[in-house]
């Protein structure tokens, strides 16, 4: 029976307490800021919320992918993914404050919205009641899937019944399709409709994939930190780490492909309705963010992870993943920041407090969820097989 080492357990409890404190403090300070800059607060809150939502939703997607596809890698982080997917419950609660800022965030939610002919045409979908209904349905689906998968996981631990494997597959296969559709529509609701005249068919794919990328990065960090010491170390061998490093490299390349394709198509077509989105991102100081993203989210990690040893050595993979966690934030800032303040680069103080607030609460909730279950699903059929890996 694999257990978390005492050293990690002590540190984890400490981190949980500190991050909870930071979370409460961060959200408290942010709440005070509503009084000064209401619009700014909701913008910062949305960016910070999406950053952590991506990890939760991506965990659910990765969990379903590994249930369908199998593989030793999926088995080694299965309980981390389950804990990550259960944080969607907290994220649903953290979503509620945004409902009070809809008119601040979205042009289509303002009283005079229908004066705009384009918004009027889109109002069959983009209207506040339907928005609320959609979010309620989507969050119920995600939370339902996450808790159903965890429920069967617990049952598997208790009974060891092999027929439970069928349930994992039966939920995960259709679940992935539902996930793609719901997260795709959510990307339109939360982010794309900020630029209400603009549209891109690549956007939902990019957003949904961004979730999976965020989750993978977070779980690489979590795995390396939490499995240290004790008998969980056997999941940190070079061959396991190289699987995750290769995933990370492949996912970064795919992210670049999606991001660049969206840009290239709009750049080539050069249409009046489409280009403002990118003009906002290459002017007014935002071009620095775009360049940082091109170098930091693609060029540097790509060249670094090409080397075989970078993927196999624990410290170098940890550094790469931590750096990518930072870059994920830059990506979400790039996604929404230029749309919120088009003419000049702006990073408000509330962005930092919201990030700390949501992040602190989220992290302590994640650790709480991770402690509820044994760290390794000992009765997963994959547990019986000694991992045999190609070199």
């Amino acid at each position, binding site marked *: 029976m694999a257990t978390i080492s005492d050293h990690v357990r002590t540190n984890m409890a400490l981190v949980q307490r500190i991050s909870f404190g930071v979370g409460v403090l961060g959200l408290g300070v942010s709440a005070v800021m509503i009084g000064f800059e209401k619009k700014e607060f909701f913008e910062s809150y949305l960016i910070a919320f999406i950053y952590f939502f991506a990890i939760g939703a991506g965990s659910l997607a990765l969990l379903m992918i590994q249930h369908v596809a199998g593989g030793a890698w999926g088995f080694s982080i299965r309980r981390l993914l389950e804990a990550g997917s259960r944080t969607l419950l907290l994220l649903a609660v953290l979503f509620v404050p945004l409902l009070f800022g809809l008119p601040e965030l979205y042009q289509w939610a303002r009283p005079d919205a229908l004066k705009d002919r384009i918004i009027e045409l889109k109002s069959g979908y983009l209207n506040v009641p339907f928005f609320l209904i959609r979010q309620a349905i989507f969050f119920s689906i995600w939370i339902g899937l996450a808790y159903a998968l965890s429920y069967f996981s617990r049952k598997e631990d208790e009974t060891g019944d092999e027929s439970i494997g069928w349930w994992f597959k039966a939920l995960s296969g259709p679940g992935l399709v539902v996930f793609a559709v719901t997260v795709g529509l959510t990307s339109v609701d939360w982010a794309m409709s900020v630029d209400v005249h603009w549209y891109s068919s690549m956007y939902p794919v990019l957003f949904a994939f961004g979730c999976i990328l965020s989750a993978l990065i977070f779980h690489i960090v979590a795995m390396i930190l939490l499995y240290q010491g004790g008998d969980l170390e056997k999941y940190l061998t070079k061959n396991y780490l190289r699987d995750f490093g290769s995933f990370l490299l492949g996912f970064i390349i795919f992210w670049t492909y999606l991001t*660049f394709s969206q*840009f*290239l198509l709009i*750049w*080539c077509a*050069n249409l009046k309705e489409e280009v403002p989105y990118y003009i906002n991102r290459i002017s007014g100081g935002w071009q620095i963010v775009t360049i940082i993203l091109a170098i930091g989210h693609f060029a540097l990690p790509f060249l670094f992870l*090409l080397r*075989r040893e970078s993927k196999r050595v624990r410290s170098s993979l940890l550094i790469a993943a931590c750096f990518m966690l930072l870059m994920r934030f830059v990506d979400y800032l790039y996604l929404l920041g230029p749309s919120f303040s088009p003419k000049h680069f702006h990073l408000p103080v509330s962005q930092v407090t919201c990030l700390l607030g949501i992040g602190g609460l989220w992290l302590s909730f994640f650790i709480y969820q991770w402690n509820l279950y044994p760290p390794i699903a000992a009765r997963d059929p994959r547990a019986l097989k000694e991992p045999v890996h190609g*070199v």
Partner: protein
Amino acid sequence: MDAPKVKIYGLVAEFETPTQIVDAANQAREAGYTAMEAYSPFPVMDLHEAVGFKRTMLPTLAFFGGLTGFFTAFTLTTFTSGGAPSFINPFLPDWFYYPLNIGGRPLNSWPAFIPPEFELTVLFASITSVFGMLLLNGYPRLYHPLFNVPRFSRVTTDRFFLCIEAKDSKFDLQGTKQFLEGLQPYEVSEVPE
């Protein structure tokens, strides 16, 4: 001592079980041999470490192949569309400078050049990998010297072979032969080049 008439590639010892060959390879490595290779009908655990397998330079070759592809496409697209920096123009022949106006876009439309750059990077890297692999495997020689040993054909069915190559600095025909025989193989044979 008589020089052998045929050039020797190495000495090969034949074993009957996977355990034997892993032990043999471990002993050979501990005895200081470095240029050796093991052959087996299926992947054998730990054999990889036992022979002290060194990685080839193929990844490095592929990387520079890819880099060459990138710069080839970069040069091709930039120069054919007339997007190269203007200080280069005096050095180019008159017939070469033929700027392409595509929908009024700038001559150096780098976003449009990235797809060909990507394609040639992949193409050059994969061509380098395939041909580099062939060259590192001894191309243009079309067979491996070990096939000169008739018994070696059993490597695909039920026998395990450990070959110590003549290029090893510690290699000496008599000494190495005695050493290999000390490992209790089924048979030790000389491999003609």
